[in-house]
């Protein structure tokens, strides 16, 4: 158990340090952890992502708490959440102290020029893998494919509202599994 606590801290500290670009940036890291340690299944992970989306609070924090909890109970959730803010905590304080020196962080803007496409590619690889796993015919059941196509319609209209997409998904799942 101590080893799991240590690994949890290490992996989530890495997320805090390297996940750049909004709440979904930690997704590729979570899938990496899933593959490496098998603490939870892929389906379980997608469920956790969905729940984190519709719970108040920053999505990144929600996902850390949830995955930590699933892996090692309440202590696990404390460790994962603490670890994800650990390094940013000190960097943020340092930045406030130095703010007047580095007000226009132009070389940081330079780094971000390539970091954002990289973050996008990381997420795209996860998106493609998930698509392949659950939507592509023959690799999964046809119900997922139908649901995916049907859900794309509300997505076109309510694209800024994750809650609605998730509610529609839940309803769609219940309805389609009746047949």
């Amino acid at each position, binding site marked *: 158990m101590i080893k799991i606590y240590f690994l949890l801290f290490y992996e989530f500290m890495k997320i805090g340090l*390297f996940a*750049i*670009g*909004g*709440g979904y940036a930690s997704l590729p*890291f979570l899938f990496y952890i899933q593959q490496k340690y098998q603490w939870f299944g892929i*389906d379980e992970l997608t469920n956790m*992502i*969905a*729940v984190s*989306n519709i*719970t108040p*609070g*920053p*999505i*990144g*924090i*929600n996902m850390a*708490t*949830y995955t930590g909890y*699933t892996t090692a109970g*309440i202590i696990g*959730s404390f460790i994962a959440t603490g670890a*994800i*803010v650990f*390094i*940013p*905590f000190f960097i*943020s*304080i340092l*930045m*406030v102290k130095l*703010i007047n020196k580095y*007000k226009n*962080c132009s070389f940081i803007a*330079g*780094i*971000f*020029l*390539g*970091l954002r*496409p*990289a973050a*996008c*590619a*990381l*997420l795209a690889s996860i998106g493609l893998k998930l*698509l392949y796993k*659950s939507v592509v015919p023959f690799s999964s059941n046809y119900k*997922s494919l139908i*649901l*995916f196509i049907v859900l*794309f319609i509300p997505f076109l209209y309510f694209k800024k509202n994750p809650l609605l997409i998730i509610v529609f*998904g*839940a309803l*769609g*799942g*219940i309805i*389609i*599994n009746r047949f």
Partner: protein
Amino acid sequence: MKKISLFEIFKIFFIIGIQLLGGGYVIVPLLKKYIVEERNWMSEEELIDYYAMSQCIPGIIAGNISICTGYRLRGFMGAVAAITGIIAPSFIAIIVLANILSSVVNFKPVKDAFFGIRISVIILVLVTIKDIWQKSVNSIFTYIMFFLILAVLLFLPVSPAIVIVFSALISLIFYKIKGVKND
């Protein structure tokens, strides 16, 4: 000026945490309302500076901006109060939900609902990819970065941390070379 109490900081960030739904940037108008307008604890310019800064350092944006604001208000302990305040509501909500879910997850309707929700998550991920793509992939350099990294990721199990460090280095080199040309 009277010293702001740590509990007061914790309380305000807790209240903001409850209202945070969706992306991290939602926190900016909330901080503006509670800290700048209602209490006058700092200026709007400072808030905007912290927001800009929070985006160019590692970590969750809403977390970073809370730490900066907390530090500005009451030093190190203020930062601790702010970050624990912003985390607490999501922490409690997730633990409660996780317990409820684990006790109902084997009922058929719940299972079926999650079958559909998993498809929703794929769509959400695709929407996010599209958003980041539109904002950031718009030049030869960024196109190359995107497709090169995607190609590598689809065939090799590379750690995301390595991808980020690698692309930060490449970007810095590219930026330096371009900067020299401009001079």
